[in-house]
């Protein structure tokens, strides 16, 4: 692995679900990279394929889905070609994941220390005592007070925010190179959310861990990530540096998303919304998936647009992007 190699490089990933009703292309030709210490935001609505992307990277896609094409390179290694055992060695130690609902992520009938210690002993031969010590340190690292008592407790004895911190602690415990966080703060209230975001950012800066933060909430991403990818109906429709994309969105969908954020709307005027609904992935309309909701659509949009990469690294998949107009 060379020093400049990205931690994660996803190339033309395709994850399809082969159901009785047809093939659902949950992730269709998705590509992005994440460098060491970088935070990438993966943004999209429900059904856009962002969570499935996250699971694909860990190899946790449930049947009837599977990775149907493309490459996932982690520190240069192609994951899709790996046997299950090798993948399992990576999970939890070099790549870890944090899920959305902290209530159901931790097993309710097992103690916290059990669930943390097993994450360590699955990858290293250490004594229980040493593992417990590391668990205690990890809890301290995420800001949980009195870790000794907390270790003996059960998940239901924690509040939502604490549980999510525990989940982060588990994700960090083996000092991974990459963390995938799938909407981890969606279920928490706003103040806790802000805290966790800040702490996550600090952690990544300090340890050099790459972070992929999956969310549907632009405001969360704004203060946190370095770069952003916007997904729609299984594809990336726009990508670039966070400031670039938020200030001057190119894709009409991104444009609509930003416009619909409440704080951007003038008080008293109705909230602007993107008309229509996300299409069903079983019945995608021909051409651009956003065509039916797009104010700028024309006949050429009946063919599928390709990703266009600009010199500054920004990407957009559209025939009619907003190029020079800044937001009003």
């Amino acid at each position, binding site marked *: 692995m060379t020093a400049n190699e990205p931690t994660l490089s996803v190339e033309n990933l395709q994850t399809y679900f082969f159901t009785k009703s047809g093939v659902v292309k949950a992730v269709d030709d998705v590509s992005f990279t994440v460098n060491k210490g970088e935070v990438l935001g993966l943004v999209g609505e429900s059904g856009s394929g962002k969570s499935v992307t996250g699971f694909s990277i860990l190899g946790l896609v449930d049947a009837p889905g599977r990775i149907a094409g493309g490459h996932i390179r982690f520190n240069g290694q192609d994951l899709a070609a790996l046997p299950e055992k090798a993948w399992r060695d990576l*999970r939890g130690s070099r790549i870890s994941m944090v899920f959305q609902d902290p209530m159901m992520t931790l097993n*309710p*009938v097992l103690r916290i220390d059990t669930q943390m210690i*097993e*994450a360590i002993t699955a990858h290293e031969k250490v004594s229980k005592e040493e593992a417990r010590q590391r668990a205690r340190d990890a809890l301290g690292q995420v800001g949980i007070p009195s870790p000794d008592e907390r270790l003996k407790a*059960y998940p239901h004895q924690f509040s939502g925010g604490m549980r999510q911190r525990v989940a982060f602690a588990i994700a960090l415990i083996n000092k991974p190179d990459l963390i995938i966080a799938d909407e981890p703060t969606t279920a928490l209230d706003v103040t806790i959310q802000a805290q966790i975001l800040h702490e996550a950012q600090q952690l990544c800066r300090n340890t050099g861990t790459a972070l992929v933060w999956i969310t549907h909430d632009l405001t969360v991403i704004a203060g946190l990530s370095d770069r952003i990818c916007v997904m729609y109906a299984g594809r990336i429709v726009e990508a670039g540096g966070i400031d670039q994309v938020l200030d001057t969105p190119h894709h009409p969908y991104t444009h609509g998303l930003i416009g619909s954020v409440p704080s951007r709307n003038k008080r008293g005027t109705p909230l602007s919304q993107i008309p229509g609904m996300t299409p069903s992935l079983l019945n995608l309309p021909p051409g651009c998936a956003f065509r039916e909701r797009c104010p700028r659509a024309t006949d050429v949009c009946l063919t599928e647009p390709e990703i266009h990469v600009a010199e500054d690294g920004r990407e957009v998949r559209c025939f009619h992007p907003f190029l020079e107009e800044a937001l009003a």
Partner: protein
Amino acid sequence: MLAFTIRRFLQSVIVLFVMSVIVFLGIYAIGNPVDILINPEADIAEQEETIRRLGLDKPVWTQYFTFMTNALQGDLGGSFVHNEPALRIIMERLPATMELAIGAVGLAILIGIPAGMIAGLKPESIVGRGIMAGSILGFSLPTFWVGLMLIMLFSVMLGWLPASGRGDTVELFGIQVSFLTWDGLTHIFLPALNLALFKMSLVIRLSRAGTREVMLQDYIKFARAKGLSEVRVIRVHVLKNILIPVVTVLGLELGSVIAFAVVTETVFAWPGIGKLLIDSIGNLDRPLVVAYLLLTVTMFIIINFVVDILYSLLDPRVRLGDVKS
């Protein structure tokens, strides 16, 4: 927790009271108590003496009172055939039945839970489907006939196991138990298996449903995301979650197993209280029948009560309550 315990206790007492009234009414009011409680072979003087002692010539209220007083002192009448107090005879035979019942429950758990888990993990496989079909057979087949077939197969045709009776016993804490001897084990295996079959089907179905449900949960996915081996995921994460509902149901079923032992004990000539009951009915030894009914009902109520309390202790969510940080 304390309030819960007290409330359940009171409920149990009420149920016990109601059941005693029902049994009492059944014997004394519907049946003819003279026939039931007095040995027809005793001479007239003895019969009249017994009538007076049992208060059969008095109004119903008094009779019930006498009946209950006697019962609470452990006097449930004397067996006609054995000429001993009914309660003592039952107590002698009780260990055999308990042994059988616990063995049956143990087998149901030991075989049922893994089988159910396998069926839950691979529902579409041949093994999975086979297990489910087997469980349907398990509760469709009448227990007594299965017992006969087991005897036919393992005793008559193969000659591996004895066909009836209890094996050699050893004394443990003052009770005679047979599972500590090899001979005892060979004797107990078939009847315990027979008795277990019905419950095993229940356990298999519960375990399967529980496993399927648990496998869909996020914490299983998270466990995998931690890099745990699938074996550990199943052995620790899945198992513990399905254990709680399964064990609870099984605990409640223990009473039913004891009652059902009547059939198995008859088929295998196992000297427990079930066989005693059937023999007594045949011998018209009615005090013994009454004693058996009362005792079983009481045991049943006690078991239900204990299981209720235990369940609330087992589930950490119920036990510890929520603590906000």
